[in-house]
């Protein structure tokens, strides 16, 4: 694929992805021409009219049905798409360049990183660097909006590095420590 994003936007070359859902994956070709989007999945063709209405929010007309959806992209290539009462998580991966996040994860092995599941403030650090921990042992307490959340070690190991201190404000997904 020699085209740039600009070519694609003007209805040039199709973009190819591998799409991963929880329990399914598909090769996908996508072509955009104005608000018309054409998807090819295996031998099937799907067409829809997609317009952006605000940041991350799209109005989609597919086969005469209207969908109002919101897209979050918490990590590169990973998408959380909110429909009315449902949220669908998927990954789009360039088959030539990238391995799926889940495969990258599988490869990372060894060290285990503990990250904050929510934005908040570190209120208590329960371990020190070099300390050994047991599975289920509380290692750190993060607080937000009057709720305290004690994170636990998912397996045994040694605290290899510590990136948090009491009183530190952390983002969702921010690494707090690594267990080796």
């Amino acid at each position: 694929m020699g085209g740039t994003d600009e070519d694609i936007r003007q209805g040039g070359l199709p973009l190819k992805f591998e799409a991963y859902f929880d329990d399914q994956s598909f090769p996908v070709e996508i072509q955009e021409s104005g608000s018309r989007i054409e998807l090819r999945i295996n031998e099937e063709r799907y067409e829809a009219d997609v317009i952006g209405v605000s940041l991350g929010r799209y109005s989609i007309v597919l086969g005469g049905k209207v969908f109002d959806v919101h897209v979050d992209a918490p990590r590169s290539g990973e998408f959380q798409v909110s429909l009315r009462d449902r949220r669908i998580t998927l990954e789009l991966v360039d088959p030539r360049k990238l391995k799926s996040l889940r495969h990258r994860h599988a490869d990372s092995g060894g060290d285990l990183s503990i990250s904050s599941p929510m934005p908040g403030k570190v209120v208590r650090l329960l371990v020190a660097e070099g300390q050994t921990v047991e599975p289920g042992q509380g290692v750190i307490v993060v607080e937000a909006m009057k709720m305290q959340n004690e994170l636990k070690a998912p397996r045994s190991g040694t605290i290899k590095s510590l990136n948090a201190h009491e009183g530190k404000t952390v983002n969702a997904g921010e690494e707090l420590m690594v267990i080796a």
Partner: protein
Amino acid sequence: MMFQKILIANRGEIAVRVIRACREMDIRTVAVYSERDRASLHVRMADEAILIGPPPASESYLSIEKIIAAAKETGAEAIHPGYGFLSENAGFAEACERSGIAFIGPPAIAMHLMGSKISARAAMKSAGVPIVPGTIQPILDNREAFAIAREIGFPIMVKAAAGGGGKGLRLVNAEAELESAIRTARSEALNAFRDDAIYIEKFLDQPRHIEIQILADSQGHVISLGERECSIQRRHQKVMEETPSTFINDSIRGRMGEAAVAVGRACGYVNAGTVEFLVDSRKDFYFLEMNTRLQVEHPITEWVTGIDLVKEQIWIAAGEALHFSQEDIRPRGAAIECRIYAEDPYNHFYPSPGKLTVLGRPAGPGVRIDSGAYEGWDVPLEYDPLLAKVAVWGNTRGEAISRLRRALLEYEVVGIQTGIPFYQRILRHPDFLLGNYDTGFIDKVLREESMGVDESPSTPPGSLEEGRLVALMAAAVHTLHNGGDSKPVALTGETPMSRWKWAGRTKIFDRGGSR
């Protein structure tokens, strides 16, 4: 004499609610705010505002001294405490009185009486109000505890007299567990409340939680404004409320209203208050506690009665008599409220503070929004996660339910997560539709939902279900227009494909007591 200026000792949606009432009454308003809340809506909406300290509530919204000083500085003649913070602090009411400022709430003595569960139980028993069977004196020794427990029959609850937020609370199923339950409840109560007094109550299995709104003026009139069904709770926190309750008939409703009025009279109550009852499966009701303030869920009572409770509170505090009698209260139709918290129902209901990049609110017939949020606002992580309340009215319960579903569908919140998708599930749940639920309902829904994670509706392997196709379209377009949209995030050991995780939140959370 009606007040010219009122200070609101609160923040968020309830401060906004009180400002609205004051504005309609031509009363000037004074907001107080912490350093973190300069940009909050209550400050923007008030006529005057006073900075009262750094972000922690203990140094700002809970500082009696600073709030009284702010009232004196601005010449406010009265203080509305909202709910939470200092609203049920008798010391604050006394401090207002000493400073010659009217406290828009009950007299301190009523707050004292209701503040201790044991003294409240004793007072209610002597007033002839049914209480959950058990003791009305603190338990002094274990022998006494055993005798009482045998008399009322297991299972029982051991409770801290000063209790709240689930602390100092033990369920005891059999005699063998009693001694250790008393020991741990006492030590927990001592740590949490510096008071190890405990008492024993019969355990009611999955009761209904139904409360009665009352209004009382300083001339001795006390009336009831009907019930609110508050059994839909998560971790002892109310999340949805409705009126009327589907569980009680007019005869029980009438008796509960009379009991609530008796409670108000027994404690010398003045202003708006709420009497909470537990109702068991035989529809016997028992006094649980009295909330000596405005409740979060007051809008549903306002919907069906047409009475503005905040204005009534202000009139009562200014010494006026109630503008209506018990016979004038004729609730009409049905109302439901749900509380929009900044939380992620897809991820263990974790708090979700942050920037509210897009906010589109529902409108149209029968919809009321009480909110402290606005588009572009950064939702602070220091305070309560309640962003807004959606309260709807319908001619019938069915219409109210359809209307709430419709309103939630119109709600657009981008940038942070809210519980809205979870409410949509509840509003379709057969047991909710039948009105067939108790305080164990949410746990039950969560158990069911955790099995029904985001599986694709049964489609042949290799084909794509409609919802997923739509998601794929949206994600693809999003990628094209945001150049890959990559803020790289450190990889973690978690599986990246997060599933629906709104059950199974195994870690310890405590948001404090229910309101």
